[in-house]
């Protein structure tokens, strides 16, 4: 039984999203006796040591073979298992993309594909391990549900929700150890339903993953300049909570923020949603710049991409001043 206390949410934050997933995984066999977890040689990175110790018969290491993993998962899902499969986000979307689109998208296999270390979190290993485009890829595959939890508490909630969800899902885990906490207690998490965390009439910020916390910090900085921001946690990129997006139409500026390429991810999804709306605020899309960086520390890379809270606030301010002019 999971307890959502200050101490536990703090512990999860220190573990990071993979560790939080591993902890949540311990609850899965009780939720569904058919649960099986596959990993492409990343069971330790996935935080699954305790799961392996307690449920060795439910954990299958497929080795460094992501393509095989997705289809093995599909074979098992067809035979009645609820399957989670874990690998790095970039390999999930690029290396095994064909298997994902055919087995998960086309055949709608009940697989929850967990993309570890999405965005820049293992950017120290270089561009091959930065998942820049996984949201763009996954949301363009029909029948995929795409979920990007804001913090480690939300990662736990999303994992448990995934176990109850029927159908193919991509679960995108961002951040590193000491992942900032947005949710310090239990909260209602429903796939497809965005969460409004802060209200403000001037600017609406829609963020996902790690950028939710950054958005909240940026909103606090902007408040010091008497600029009031709404902040929305858009944890489900697909299906996008279009109603929540359309509630922001009264703002003078709409901002989307993601630890993902500015092209094709949350920003694109929101823009598509509003494309036919005649009167809407301009949209500032913040995200990773469309280039490959040399490997570097996570926080350094965030700064290079303008994704620290301070930089986000400055970008928003600059756009806002242009809008008002």
């Amino acid at each position, binding site marked *: 039984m999971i307890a959502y206390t200050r101490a536990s949410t703090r512990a999860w934050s220190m573990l990071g999203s993979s560790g939080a997933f591993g902890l949540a995984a311990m609850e899965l066999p009780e939720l569904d006796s058919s649960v099986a977890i596959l990993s492409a040689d990343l069971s330790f990175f996935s935080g699954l040591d305790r799961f392996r110790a307690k449920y060795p018969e439910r954990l299958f290491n497929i080795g460094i073979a992501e393509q*095989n993993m997705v*289809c*093995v998962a599909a074979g098992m899902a067809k*035979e009645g298992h609820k399957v989670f499969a874990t690998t790095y986000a970039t390999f999930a979307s690029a290396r095994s993309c064909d*298997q994902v689109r*055919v*087995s998960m998208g086309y055949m709608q296999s009940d697989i929850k594909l967990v993309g570890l270390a999405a965005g820049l979190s293992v950017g120290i290993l270089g561009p091959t391990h930065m998942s820049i485009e996984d949201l763009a890829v996954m949301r363009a595959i029909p029948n995929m549900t795409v979920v990007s939890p804001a913090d480690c508490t939300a990662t736990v909630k999303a994992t448990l929700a995934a176990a109850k969800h029927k159908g193919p899902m991509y679960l995108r885990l961002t951040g590193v150890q000491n992942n900032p906490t947005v949710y310090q207690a239990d909260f209602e998490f429903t796939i497809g339903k965005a969460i409004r965390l802060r209200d403000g009439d001037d600017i609406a910020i829609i963020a996902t993953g790690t950028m939710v916390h950054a958005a909240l910090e940026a909103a606090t900085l902007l408040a010091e300049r008497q600029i009031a921001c709404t902040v929305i946690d858009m944890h489900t990129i697909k299906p996008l909570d279009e109603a929540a997006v359309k509630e922001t139409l009264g703002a003078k500026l709409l901002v989307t923020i993601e630890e993902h390429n500015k092209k094709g991810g949350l920003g694109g999804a929101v823009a598509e949603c509003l494309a036919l709306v005649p009167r809407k605020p301009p949209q500032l899309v913040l995200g990773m710049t469309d280039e490959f960086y040399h490997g570097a520390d996570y926080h350094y890379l965030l700064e290079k991409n303008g994704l620290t809270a301070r930089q986000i606030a400055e970008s928003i301010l600059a756009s806002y001043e242009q809008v008002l002019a």
Partner: protein
Amino acid sequence: MHDVTAAAIREPVRARGPGSEPRGFDAARCRAAARQIRRYVMQMSLTAGPHGAHAGGALSMVEILSVLYLEVMRYDVKNPLWEQRDRFILSKGHGSPSLYAALCLAGFLDEKELATFKANETRLYGHPSMNPSMGIEFSSGSLGHGLSLGVGSALALKIRGNAASRVFVVLGDGELNEGSVWEAAMSAAHFGLPNLVAIVDRNGMQYDGFTEPVMNTGDLAAKWRSFGWMVREVDGHDVSAVHDALTAPTAGSGQSGGAAPLAIIARTIRGKGVSFMENARVWHHSRLTQAMYDQAMAELDASAETAATPIDRGGSRRP
């Protein structure tokens, strides 16, 4: 649709499921079924018209399918997801015309539906689309996935103690270029899956011609053995040999201490049964004209089983 002669099969074998009686292997019946499958493939290819058809690769695996669906596999057309069924996965999905023909003989499809092959509102696509009521376990077409799907299925069956059901995966030899196949092969031996059978339709050809100059796959038997599989090599057009390979006991120990998965390397001829298609590069996929069709059907009619033994309807199979 060209009329089928009296010697051909009219009624499919309905079920070889629960309650069916054991019956000995009937080679003549298999050969007759193989010939009928070839006829159906030609009919579908003609119907496809300008869309063309993957006739060559469909024809090379006909005996494999006739033996599997008439003599080896257990299934129940009235209960297509019957837990005790054997699973069939066509990893070389472009061989779909033969699969549809075999499913027709098995009773999953009506003969009339074969005429809808590649039509706009059909269920019979150029590549198989997952549909349990039709007996199609998984969609295929993107090469290199099927053996992995088979590993997952066989693994799940093993986990829940279903030792009776087997998983048969037919792959092309060109398909073995795909690295993902070898990921699957490695994992099958690792997990110890004696219920998994890979059948390589080794017709020695792929889209760009013969496999050897395109991408030489070398000694396939040695490769599969080195991956921990038991290997049997057969003439893929000899129904008795194919039957023996599929049914002979597989006692032996794999690398996990359990029995090893089985790889059958079936030497075949791409386009087998139609002279102008055999080993012809273009017949990976090409358009069948009426004249070609007439010639093909004449050759099939003239083939050895002209006085064919009618297929014994009744769905009797070993339980």
